[in-house]
């Protein structure tokens, strides 16, 4: 009898809905977890992504959307699909909506958040009335999707994002004065915002690394100058690449 009660209680524990707001998170895999508050992404929020916006948005979507979750890109007609694939995004679970007529943005995003974990948007200025954006935000909190505003704050969704990721490009490597090719870029990703991210933090990454993915930078490979190419460019006769290109290693 006691056993049964205990079993019922433990069952009760197990089936209790886990719906506390800060417990509903999207797992983030890979190096990006180290800069996000709590190492994960809270469901239902909007994230502003700026600086090297497209690469960072793709890297974020790729590290969130594992398993069977889908990703949608809305109004991103110029998205480089090869770059999306190299970033690790599952192309078979990617929906693209473009172009979006003015006035339909909120309806489209509201329909997508029901099915998709991550929605990337790049709306033109004042395409979305603030009232509609609030309704979309409410729907997102309910469904637990994450809205990523690409190229924030230049192309802003009217709602201010809860979390901001800014990737400041530091330097490209692999390319010189007429030789080599673009191979990898170092960026500094700064994270700020509400909900546990009120204290800004930042770290350096390869974005993209030489396979097109996001990778952490080892301390000795970090660049110091903002404009190193011109000053460090050596004549091509000194062989191959002008800049030393440390091989980024995966996390």
């Amino acid at each position, binding site marked *: 009898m006691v056993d049964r009660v205990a079993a019922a209680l433990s069952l009760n524990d197990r089936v209790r809905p886990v719906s506390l707001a800060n417990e509903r998170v999207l797992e983030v895999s890979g190096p990006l977890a180290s800069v996000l508050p709590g190492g994960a992404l809270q469901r239902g929020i909007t994230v502003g992504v700026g600086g*090297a916006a*497209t*690469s960072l948005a*793709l890297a974020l979507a790729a590290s969130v959307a594992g398993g*069977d979750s*889908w990703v*949608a890109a809305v109004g991103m*007609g*110029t*998205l*480089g*699909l*090869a*770059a999306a*694939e*190299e970033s690790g995004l*599952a*192309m*078979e*679970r*990617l*929906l*693209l*909506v*473009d172009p*979006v*007529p003015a006035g*339909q943005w909120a*309806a*489209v995003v509201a*329909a*997508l958040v*029901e*099915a*998709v974990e991550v929605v990337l948007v790049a709306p033109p200025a004042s395409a979305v009335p603030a009232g509609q954006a609030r309704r979309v935000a409410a729907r997102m909190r309910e469904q637990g999707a994450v809205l990523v505003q690409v190229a924030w704050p230049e192309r802003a969704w009217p709602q201010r994002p809860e979390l901001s990721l800014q990737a400041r*490009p*530091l*330097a*490209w490597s692999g*390319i*010189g*004065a*007429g*030789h*080599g*090719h*673009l*191979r*990898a*870029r170092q960026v500094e990703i700064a994270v700020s915002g509400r909900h546990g991210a009120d204290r800004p933090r930042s770290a350096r990454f390869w974005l*993209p*690394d*030489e*396979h*097109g993915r996001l990778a952490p930078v080892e301390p000795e490979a970090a660049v110091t100058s*903002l*404009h190193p*190419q*011109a000053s460090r*460019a050596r004549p091509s006769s000194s062989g191959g690449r002008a800049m030393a290109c440390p091989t980024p290693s995966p996390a």
Partner: protein
Amino acid sequence: MNSAFGMNGSPTRTLVVWCPDWPVLALGRHPEEPAAVFVANRLVAATAAARRDGVAMGMRRREAQARCPAMEVLDRDPDREARSFEAVVAVVSSFTPWVELSRPGTCALPTRGPARYFGGDRALADAVREQVEQAVPAMAGLVGVGIADGPFAARLAARHRSPGQLVEPGRTPAFLAPLPLSVLELPELVGVLQRLGLHTLGAFAALAVPDVIGRFGRVGERAHRLARGLDDLPLDARVPPSDLSVSAELDPPVARIDQAAFAAKSLADRLSVLLDDAGWSCLRLAVEAETEHGEHLLRLWRHEGALTPGAIAERVRWQLEGWLTTSAVSRPTGGLIRLALVPDQVIPARGRQLGFWGGQSEAARRAARAAGRVAGLLGPAAVQVVDRRGGRHPDEQFSLLAATAVDLEDRATQPLPAPTAPWPGRLPVPSPGVVWAAGDRPAARVLDAAGSPVTVNGRGEASAAPARLEARGWSRPYRVEAWAGPWPVEERWWDPAQQRRAARLQVVLDDVSAWLVVLEGGCWWLAARYD
């Protein structure tokens, strides 16, 4: 419902109308223009003109273009194939309403009634051919009409010789016997049989049934039945009870295709729940529609595998699209008031492997629903999914398909096929994050240190080192900090209409932004940004 194609085991005498090369002809190409349709870089259909130049099924795009340089390369459009085929089906269904479709390009009908009316098989075949060629003038002299015992043999009879062939009743096994095993379209099974020294359907048919089942199981048994000229229905196929159907009254009447498709979608979802509960998969489905003026349209759809809800909705949409948008005589005069889905043959569901709690499939189903809703808002082609294609430029490596035209549940479980070949001249990895389509590229100017424009000579060398880059819409010119290239690209130099000469240059500017600029037609353009 089932009287038309018998289910008693003996094959039904069947007429098959076959429109060759349908995927390419449906796109409005004439058989005498060289053109071909590719899916994932493999050729799936070509016009007669292209085939004369040595282009064959399954060829890679590059290989096919090398053999037939003038050939036009097209992407597959299943929607349009189905829509244009409706013109043929409408004509054929004037002979009997029991027209069965498996895929656009081929349809079948039982000959028993119509043959008696028209005075024999030959007269019926001639009448059907004449009517179809009248309805689709581009197909004149190409339509294959075959009659045999059973749809499989009839299909082969239709394709066997160009005007098709009549196989006398009872002569079907003799007709099939000399044909090669490859007509079974089961490459794995055929490979094994060929290694066993069997090369024709006749040789395979001569094996004893228990031996075939013991060695090859279910698949082998079905192939064996086909080879013997028997009916190709699985033995456990049956007629479902009449309450296993769904219908919807549409009030007010629906005249727009997207509204009708929306209704069809929810019907298909309901039907799939009914079928799941009963433990059946649908092999053949009847779609019935009725207009406010009492017009009635019925189509039978067959699916090689069992029909999933996504696949059902897709077929309903094709059919309605064909019916509501054709200019043919068959076009209804009023809006639709009733829509019904009636499963016509079912087999016990053996089930597809689903994730725990629905898992993968549930996420895909939700994605398909959301795609449907957005398509309802913005039009059927607004939501797109990605398919692989080959190409050198970043915007050529993938093609986009309308999400409502593909079965998302099937797609979600299989990654895109890996690239089939390296493309020499492809840009090195990493690829740019922002790519402008050829028509939308911002114009740019690449200047050297002296301020004069940089040009590229015929040997692919730059006239001077680029020092500054300016582009339309920029507030100031930027200093070039580093650059690589120019890399010349020459594509399709053998074809004056499609040839393309360009030179590409990667540059890094003083704000650490990186760009791909292209010199084409004497002007520099921003082609992509490494954002």
